[in-house]
């Protein structure tokens, strides 16, 4: 790891000011579960690290009726274990429990995952399917407008993800088909059903990060059953292909995993 300097602000304002002061050589550090491995491999070398773990404004989960708001600094473990989230949106809590391993979940945060937008990250699939909102220290951005491409989001320099929020749907579930070695999603699908239709968020498979599968959404909105997607084809051209699976394989996974997710949602 290259040299760096560590800073520990205790408020959002202080954190944002530090970022302005240090400029583009600075990076926020939340759980460090992506950033530190990247720094160890010398793929990132920020001169300054601004630790967000001691910023109180980023903590806390609020559930108001069916509205859920999760602070950017909330860990995957806290989401997975939250009785409040489990009671209104069990699919979201169970997704968090499938991220990495217990030690990763104890440190990794919602804000870090959303800001990083790894093409196989789990939360983006859910936030797209739930029509969620990403809150920052400057504005609110709909998930559809936030996730732009591989590791690319609408965040501007120095902008901090302070929370994510969404309304719990009538039914939802997340199904994750894992790479057996890394345990990241080869394809993860979140389905969310409401009176006005079904949304399907897919991660791990697309060549430009998580996306909404609109053909699947249409089919499932008229018939919320696994067989509804049988006749559809997913374009290979938009899929990732690598040593773990070809784009044709991933295109097929989108269908298979969606069917499993629907089945799971129906069984809740």
């Amino acid at each position, binding site marked *: 790891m290259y*040299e760096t300097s560590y800073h*520990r602000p205790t408020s959002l304002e202080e954190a944002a000011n530090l970022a302005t002061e240090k400029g583009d050589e600075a990076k926020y*550090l939340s759980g460090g579960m992506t950033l*530190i491995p990247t720094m160890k491999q010398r793929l990132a070398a920020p001169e300054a690290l601004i630790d967000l*773990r001691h910023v109180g404004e980023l903590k806390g989960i609020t559930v108001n009726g069916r509205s859920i708001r999760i602070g950017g600094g909330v860990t995957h473990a806290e989401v997975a274990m939250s009785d409040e989230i489990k009671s209104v949106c069990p699919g979201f809590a169970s997704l968090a429990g499938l991220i990495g391993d*217990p*030690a990763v979940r104890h*440190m990794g945060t919602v804000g870090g995952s959303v800001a990083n937008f790894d093409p196989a990250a789990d939360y983006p699939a859910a936030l797209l399917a739930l029509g969620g909102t990403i809150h920052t220290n400057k504005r609110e951005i709909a998930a559809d407008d936030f996730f732009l491409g591989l590791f690319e989001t609408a965040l501007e320099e120095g902008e901090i993800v302070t929370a994510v929020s969404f309304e719990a749907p009538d039914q939802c579930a997340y199904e994750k088909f894992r790479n057996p070695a890394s345990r990241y999603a080869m394809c993860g699908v979140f389905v969310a059903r409401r009176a006005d239709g079904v949304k399907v968020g897919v991660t791990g498979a697309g060549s430009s990060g998580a996306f909404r599968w609109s053909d699947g959404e249409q089919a499932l909105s008229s018939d919320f059953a696994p067989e509804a997607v049988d006749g559809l084809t997913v374009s290979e051209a938009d899929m990732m292909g690598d040593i773990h699976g070809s784009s044709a394989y991933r295109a097929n996974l989108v269908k298979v995993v969606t069917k499993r997710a629907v089945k799971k949602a129906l069984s809740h």
Partner: protein
Amino acid sequence: MTDVTITVNGREMKGSVEDRTLLVQFLRGNLGLTGTHVGCDTSQCGACVVHVDGKAVKSCTMLAVQASGSSVTTIEGLASGADLHPVQAAFREHHGLQCGYCTPGMIMTAVDMIQRHGSSLDEETVREELDGNICRCTGYHNIVKAILSAAGASQPQSIAAE
């Protein structure tokens, strides 16, 4: 260099470290607590697991400066005197190790798992939660047995082939 204060196994330790120093380097290099191992460069193997403020974390993926002000428990802090911690004793009893390289991390992960689940632990949960701990030798079977035994949970009825 930054001054850090970390309570390690109940004792307040002070040190001056480069900001890029990993917690595991501080524990092993500065404090000589070499029970915590490093088995990979990718945050995947879990040989380095310690508890920070009561929770299992990978000490190779945390900076010492991040842990300043926190309490850290390492494998050296589990036993009380000559008496092994129940999880350590269970690993010995059930032969949950061969070369022993993964063992400190396995045990720290197991203690954390038992704290969260207690005797409701079952084989599937143990295997799922060992996701971040890799053992090159044992095939995991005796590790799972040891953890279930230490949790006071029931052992698997049938023994699945590995």
